[in-house]
């Protein structure tokens, strides 16, 4: 019996800290200290936790603990009930370790820059950030699909909260739109989940796969297919794939830079977590992979073409972030172990790079309070060091060696050729070039062209913490780019288990 309390701590600690921070109203100093300590601990816990599973309430399957099964009638011990997981189960493996570590790292830098950029850290902002991180960690860990749904809703509320707390113009409208659309997608996702429950009698993914694989239910039954469709629909909302790409990019553009950096990490990891569950449950069905690839292609094409025509740099980044999700989806949809590894690796890279870009471009907002590229220019002279870091982030996103996205995009292209779909590789290369062009257009108008006369640059200096965050993100990008084995080795086991 492998009970592993630290697995639960990954979710409980940020929730507890969030609730505690909310109690300390106006005590700015204490809040700063507690928030920073929690944020430092967050990426460390997954590194210390041994792999295994955690059963809430100690309800291990009867088969694992015969003493529990004593005195039960043959009706239970003789049937499959004996094997089933009775309580909520969290599973922790090497791939989840890497993803939760990266999520913790991004949370740390989001909190770190927020604490240093804002004069008064009291309020709900840090609470919402920790709540979001806790729920996305739970989504990654949970093997129980209803538990996943509960945290999906909490994550959605936390994201809405981060947008409301930003204080940017028209943020309330965007938040309301996001939550209204979420109120269509959420119940329908639940409907899909309970249809699965009705068919298989379970909400535990491992048990559902057991019933599906062993012929207890008809895998081609219409109810099952509709359940799959509804779960895919919920997945689109959670990750911001089309038709939710417009609202998701609007949400990114209405949050503060550290908020957006965190929000996109939530989307990326939620997409991966639910995507993995969809593949685990339904990969017997060839149409699932076709649908995932199709949706990803639409996301890539719409996201990146829409990014080109935007003028607000936060919106450009928002659409690019949505477009990059398509790369992950293609990796997952290819269905081969190599393809899924590449997709997961791309997810890790994208989370880091987009956070890097959001915080990097966030310095412009800090210095000028303007996010319209048409009103900006000449920022290179204001702070050349930050400009260089932002440029490197853009190069990383486009997939320039030796940075990390180069490795994952190369793997994705190889995987698509191996699967007999070289067209996907060509589209990915084409869209990478366009991504780079879009980024360079924004970079040129903000940093390199002559400064417009009306532009006023505030004389506040960019906090050192922001620059440190950017440098650390760059180091992560370089490390993963030069030594991709660090990531791919731990992702491979998960990918191999899915095929």
């Amino acid at each position: 019996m492998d009970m592993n309390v630290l697995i639960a701590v990954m979710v409980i600690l940020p929730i507890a800290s969030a609730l505690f921070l909310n109690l300390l109203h106006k005590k700015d100093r204490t809040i700063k200290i507690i928030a920073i300590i929690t944020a430092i601990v967050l990426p460390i816990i997954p590194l210390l936790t041994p792999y295994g599973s955690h059963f809430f309430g100690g309800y291990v399957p009867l088969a694992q603990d015969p003493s529990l099964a004593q005195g039960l009638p043959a009706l239970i011990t003789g049937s499959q009930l004996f094997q089933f997981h009775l309580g909520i189960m969290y599973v922790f493996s090497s791939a989840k370790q890497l993803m939760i570590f990266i999520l913790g790292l991004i949370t740390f830098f989001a909190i770190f820059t927020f604490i240093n950029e804002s004069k008064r850290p009291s309020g709900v902002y840090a609470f919402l950030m920790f709540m979001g991180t806790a729920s996305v960690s739970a989504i990654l860990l949970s093997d129980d699909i209803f538990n996943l749904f509960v945290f999906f809703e909490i994550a959605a509320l936390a994201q809405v909260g981060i947008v409301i707390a930003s204080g940017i113009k028209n943020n309330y409208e965007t938040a309301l739109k996001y939550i209204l659309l979420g109120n269509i997608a959420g119940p329908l996702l639940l409907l899909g989940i309970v249809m699965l429950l009705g068919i298989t009698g379970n909400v535990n993914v491992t048990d559902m796969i057991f019933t599906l694989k062993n012929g207890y239910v008809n895998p081609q039954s219409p109810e099952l297919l509709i359940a799959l469709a509804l779960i895919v629909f919920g997945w689109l909302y959670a990750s911001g794939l089309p038709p939710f790409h417009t609202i998701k990019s609007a949400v990114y553009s209405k949050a503060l830079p550290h908020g957006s950096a965190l929000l996109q990490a939530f989307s990326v990891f939620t997409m991966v977590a639910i995507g993995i569950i969809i593949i685990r449950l339904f990969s017997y069905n060839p149409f699932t992979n076709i649908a995932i690839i199709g949706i990803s292609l639409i996301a890539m094409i719409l996201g990146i073409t829409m990014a080109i025509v935007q003028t607000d740099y936060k919106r450009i980044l928002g659409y690019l972030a949505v477009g990059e999700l398509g790369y992950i989806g293609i990796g997952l949809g290819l269905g081969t172990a190599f393809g899924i590894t590449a997709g997961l690796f791309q997810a890790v890279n994208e989370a880091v790079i987009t956070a890097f870009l959001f915080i990097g471009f966030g310095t412009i907002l800090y210095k000028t309070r303007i996010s319209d590229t048409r009103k900006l220019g000449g920022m290179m002279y204001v702070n050349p060091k930050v400009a260089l870091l932002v440029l490197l982030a853009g190069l990383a996103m486009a997939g320039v060696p030796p940075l990390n996205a180069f490795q994952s995009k190369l793997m994705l292209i190889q995987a698509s050729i191996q699967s007999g779909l070289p067209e996907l590789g060509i589209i990915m290369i084409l869209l990478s070039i366009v991504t780079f062009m879009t980024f360079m257009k924004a970079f040129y108008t903000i940093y390199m062209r002559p400064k417009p006369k009306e532009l006023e640059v505030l004389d506040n200096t960019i906090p050192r913490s922001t620059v440190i965050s950017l440098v650390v993100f760059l180091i992560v990008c370089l490390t993963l780019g030069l030594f991709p084995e660090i990531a791919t080795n731990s992702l491979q086991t998960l990918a191999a288990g899915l095929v």
Partner: protein
Amino acid sequence: MSFYDVILNKIRKIQEKAGEDEPVTNVTASTMLTAELTLIASVLIAVVMVRLIHPVLMIIMVAAILIIVFTAMPIMPRLRREQNDDLNNMMFYVVVALGVIVALFYWGNLNV
């Protein structure tokens, strides 16, 4: 009149129809053009994958898309207007997507 002016005029015409008063600058025209070309190129390459179902179907689809593209150009300004931030618009596409996904999964699984 050069080809560039033709494109500029087309974009201006569509914007006038939509009642947008933004001026059509060089930057808007060239970004629209880039987006347009990216869109067409990626869609055409993606359609080539239909060859896995049937090569003849692929040829027909590529030809059809080429014809549609050349008659409907420029697509990007219209596509951009469709993907706006209006709630009713978003809600419409969300419900349409829901219908399409359920129908496709139901039909696709029974027929693929």
